[in-house]
């Protein structure tokens, strides 16, 4: 978490545009479990973020392209098919190819504990297991978005 001061600094930086944090909520793979994705999309929206939801059965490439086109601050991927290792590896490759690997990626779903570290090694910033509170998700997404914007200002 950033210190209160740096948060304030970022807010000042953002002030002229006041562009709300924009999040892509994506379902990668072919599982149809969209309850979690929808609840989270809704919670992010209620927190004042702009949310783009992809719908189900998206490929990693489609999601990477959508993230770039929509110019999002964070990508949240929901996978409950067990194929997360495969799909996230692909997503990271696609983002890199599109020069968009600065967009932080968070993942949620039925993820076995032993897969959390390997996912983080692939570059995933946070893994949300079932039962994670919406408040925590909103906070982390906000922090990641701010960090990303802060970095952009420095460039």
């Amino acid at each position: 978490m950033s210190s209160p001061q740096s948060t304030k600094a970022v807010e000042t930086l953002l002030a002229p545009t006041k562009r709300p944090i924009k999040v892509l909520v994506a379902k990668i793979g072919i599982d149809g479990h969209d309850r979690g994705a929808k609840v989270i999309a809704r919670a992010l929206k209620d927190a004042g973020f702009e949310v783009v939801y992809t719908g189900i059965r998206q490929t990693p490439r489609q999601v990477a392209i959508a993230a770039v086109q929509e110019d999002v601050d964070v990508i949240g991927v929901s996978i409950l098919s067990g194929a997360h290792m495969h799909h996230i590896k692909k997503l990271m490759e696609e983002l890199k190819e599109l020069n968009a690997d600065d967009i932080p990626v968070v993942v949620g779903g039925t993820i076995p504990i032993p897969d959390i570290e390997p996912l983080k090694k692939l570059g995933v910033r946070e893994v949300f297991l079932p039962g994670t509170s919406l408040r925590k998700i909103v906070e982390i997404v906000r922090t990641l978005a701010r960090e990303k914007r802060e970095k952009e200002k420095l460039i």
Partner: protein
Amino acid sequence: MPPLFNKDEVGRIKKEIEYWEKELVPQWLKRLPERMSEFTTLSGIPVKRIYTPADLEDFDYMEKLGLPGAYPYTRGIHATMYRARLWTMRMFSGFGGPEETNARLKFLIKHGETGLSLAFDYPTLIGIDPDDPLAEGEVGIVGVSVPTLKDMEIIFDGIDMSTVTTNMTINPPAPVLLSFYVATAEKQGVPYTKIGGTTQNDPLKEFIAQKSYVFPPEPAVKVAMDLIEWSVKNLPKWNPISISGYHIREAGSTAVQELAFTIADGIEYVRQLINRGLDVDEFAPRLSFFFDAHINFFEEIAKFRAARRMWAKIMKEWFGAKKPRSMWMRFHTQTAGVSLTAQQPFNNIVRTAIEALAAVLGGTQSLHTNSFDEPFRVPSEFAAKIALRTQQIIAYETGVADTIDPLAGSYYVEWLTDEIEERAWRYIERIERMGGMLEAVKKGFPQREITEASYQFQKDVEEGRKFIVGVNIFVEEEEEEVRNVPLLEFDQEEIEARQKKRIKEIRSNRNKQRWERALNELRKAAERGENIMPYVLEAAKAYATLGEIMSTLKEVYGVYVEPPIY
């Protein structure tokens, strides 16, 4: 018929309650306030402090309950229920390739399982082959990969298909998987009259909740009705459809919505089949249902009892069914996957036991108990065995199966049964006004209701109105035990490669002429609007793959894409 309680007695009780509420309760509340300002069921139905005969003032026993095995079947569809035969312990299983699933089925049979239930992997569920680009990384994970007749032959190698019944959780590709099954049984020499089991084959709930749809709603329903019609005429022991509330509930609906939407789906199918010229008593005895058993104990029991009463009434009064069997709501139950937590996962064993008990007290015909490790992955053998043993403990140790519908007459359970039924009827009336469930689904009505309910529930958890142990109460920061859960390990990449190799071999070894002719005939039959089942069966026997058969049908029927609304 006279009400169960006489008027004078109810009057006396009411007076007593009045006094109790004015005098006694406030004294207690002053000393010790209640835990919540309002108590509600998981469906948000307010729960009062106490229920008495005053809540069942006009309760007519024979009209509301009757006896087990007799209309309106509230107390059970059989006169002897579990005293004669326990529910079928049917554990959903399947992972990897057909070889792994064959071994798992034999393991479960050895441990006393009485009915098989096949879980398919995602590529199979949406009707694509393992070498389809969309299937990459998904083959064999959440269930078994069955893209050809050959795979089904391997699954049942060494298992006598005349002695087992098999549930297949499959929807848009149901005609294909049923054809694989029937063709395999034929090869074993099993006559059609002895082929028993279930295909889920419930298209409407795919759009409402499960989201493994392929075709748009209308052709999806048409294909499902084809299977039912063919099965009713050819496979007397097959349950061609399992009208499912389970997925609706898991997607976040309330118990009332689960009940109402499932019954509304059933009504739509009955109408469709009658419109095809079928006699209601010819097919209705073959319809079966599938519900969720969630954690709010009494609400679930009340839901099951209300379901039986409502369906019997609909079949008798709306559709003029004559045979008792047409009025029976036979159902399978699965404990609530969504009630399981990744936090302190061993607690899931307890949750599942309570939910299983509710299903049994609700009079289910068969039951699947979830394994405690399922928030992470498909179950390990160890976890699956505990889940099966949970059912056996309920069946053989607790005594709950020794008398029928033991909670009948509980003031609370009877009141709640009536309340849930009443609320479900209101939903059904709304759906009827929209023109039935097919129309309601096209309008997105049940989809929106569920999205709303699931968000509401999450907020209730978030804001401490509903509790989940280990999640928002009794939380542990460092969870040693989570790291010690032994998960099922298998080499997914090896399985995917094996399945790709096998399908390639099948494509190059099959009789090209028979295969080509079968797919052409299938396409033409679909274009003519004929029942596709005989053509799918021939294509399956010609070793056409699942993906090929489904692609042929997609060319005729089109493909559904859901608007991404949240």
